[in-house]
């Protein structure tokens, strides 16, 4: 089970990122627990100033844009 967090204040790109993560997890049959972090203080705790950010098992792997499908596949297969 991967703990996945999407950091971002509910903007459109954050929603797109969250559904991309869910979709890829489903396709790759990877179990994830997805959490959307929308509180600004919590986002800042990861030192993310450009949203959306993606955190996997506590580690920030991406920030500033919607990740590409290939990137998400890489993160999930590395774990």
């Amino acid at each position, binding site marked *: 089970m991967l703990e996945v967090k999407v950091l*971002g*204040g509910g*903007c*459109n*790109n*954050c929603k797109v990122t969250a559904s991309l993560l869910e979709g890829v997890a489903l396709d790759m049959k990877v179990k994830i627990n997805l959490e959307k972090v929308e509180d*600004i203080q919590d*986002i*800042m705790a990861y*030192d*993310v*100033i*450009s*949203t959306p950010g993606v955190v996997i098992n506590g580690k920030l792997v991406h*920030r*500033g*844009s*919607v990740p*590409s499908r*290939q*990137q998400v596949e890489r993160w999930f297969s590395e774990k």
Partner: protein
Amino acid sequence: MITDKRVQVIFGLFIWTGLYASLIPFSEWLVALLPVEGDSHLGEAIAFFVYDAPKVLLLLTVVVFVMGIINTWFTSERTRALLAGRSLGLANMLAASLGVVTPFCSCSAVPLFIGFVQAGVPLGVTFSFLIAAPMVNEIALTLLFGLFGWKVAMLYLGLGLTVAILGGILLGKLHVERYLEPWVQNITKKDVSFESEARSLEQRLEAGYAAVKDVVGKVWIYILVGIAVGAFIHGYVPENFMASFMGRDAWWSVPLAVIIGVPMYSSAAGIIPVVQALLAKGAALGTALAFMMSVVALSLPELIILRKVLTVRLIAMFVSIVALGILLVGFVFNLVL
């Protein structure tokens, strides 16, 4: 199937060049096919649309691709590290210029603002960035270049940066720190070190593709609608119709354009073709550009987001200073040209 990204790019460039070169013959061929007179109102409107719409979309695709790659070097975090601890003046110029090449979405305005303040970027410098980032961007510049030529695009770039730099310096001099929301004032400074994430060429090209898919996928409809409105005005509104109330002699048209433009919000993509059509019918360039800058630079959604960190008073100062700067740009333009 070609899988090497570099080969794909070269291949794509060939196709792009071919398409771009066949724009004029294609539009002439298409208009000739239609059962309308070329010099009729409808004929002119159609000719305008079928030439300009594909041209602008093609230009935009290649520019967004290149910017998508350039953006991989200029993340907000790196920009912050470059600006932290500098004093007003030169840093404002740097901030405004970085605003052009750093990817920025108004939905990140709050974390970005706090991140900058936290790292010790002076407030005036942060504002220079916040003014330039939405106003001067590759989409606006590409459209201006495609529809008006490089001179107007360069003027827009120069004047947009000037507004951002001077606006930021002025806000910095006014010591507006006291008008931040209290919780922002209490944020402790922390050292920011930037760790560069190693990215391969492949990944940067991938980012370019992603940018095209994202940006062009989002704005193409605005561009088509904008150019369609432009085409309509081009074909049907009488020559010099605008001259009487948006022309050079009507000095009050500049403030009016800014007042109408500030609450309006559109991406640069939707507004520029309309501006082009206004110009073609006799509106003054300064008035039209002031209108466009005020629509693009200040947006109600962004102000609402910024309200979380700025008091109403500071937002009002921010809007007034930017609007005043745009007003000056409009007047100077109309005076000089």
